[in-house]
């Protein structure tokens, strides 16, 4: 069972990357997070996200946390 089914949180990283015309590797370079960890986040397999990671992603993608996270 995927993690998002348990906690109901999903990450809209794919949509934001597409809107910004950015690849996962480019984002990884910008926020200094490994591509593996970004993939974990993108595929909804992360259990938690640090504020520092969230802030770095928001800065790199020029968005707000609410644009990145949704709750179903």
């Amino acid at each position, binding site marked *: 069972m995927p*993690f998002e089914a348990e906690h109901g949180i999903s990450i809209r990283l794919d949509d934001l990357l597409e809107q910004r015309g950015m690849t996962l590797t480019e984002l990884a370079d910008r926020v*200094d*997070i*490994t591509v*593996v*960890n970004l993939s974990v986040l993108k595929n909804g*397999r*992360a259990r938690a*996200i*640090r504020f520092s990671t969230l802030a770095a992603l928001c800065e790199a993608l020029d968005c707000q946390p609410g644009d990145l996270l949704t709750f179903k």
Partner: protein
Amino acid sequence: MNRVGPRRVGPSKLAVGLYVVVTLAFAIASILYAIFAVVVVYQAAIGTLGYRDLALTVPQLIYGVPTLFVLWGVRSFARSMRGGDPFTTAGVRRIRILALVFLLGFPSVRLLGGILFALAFPAPHPVALVVRSMSGTALSGLISGLTLFVLAEVFAHGVRLREDVEGTV
């Protein structure tokens, strides 16, 4: 910015040193018990060991089994520490098994030794003799075993925390 996500923390020098010391202790104890066993078997074969000698010697020899088992378990645990990854379910299981060895293994061997001693050296109160011979080991085994069971639960909690951290990005 610091790299985020799970990362592996390397072992301390003390952990590496402990692994070396425990490995040496296991090797030395194994050699000593092997020599002891060969001597006992040889003496028994040539008939220089009477049944009373055997009653005293055999339990000491059997005592080597839990002793080597504990040293092997501690060595495995020290190796997982050296590898920087001690908080695993296998590690928790290993500590629980060691706890059982202290709780039951050592006192059982002492009980066997006491029974053999009582049979070889008849005394007015053989049961008291057996109880007296194993009470010290049973008490220290109880303390050590319970301590290890508590440590196992601490490690089990560590494993759960680790699993949680591994999912944090």
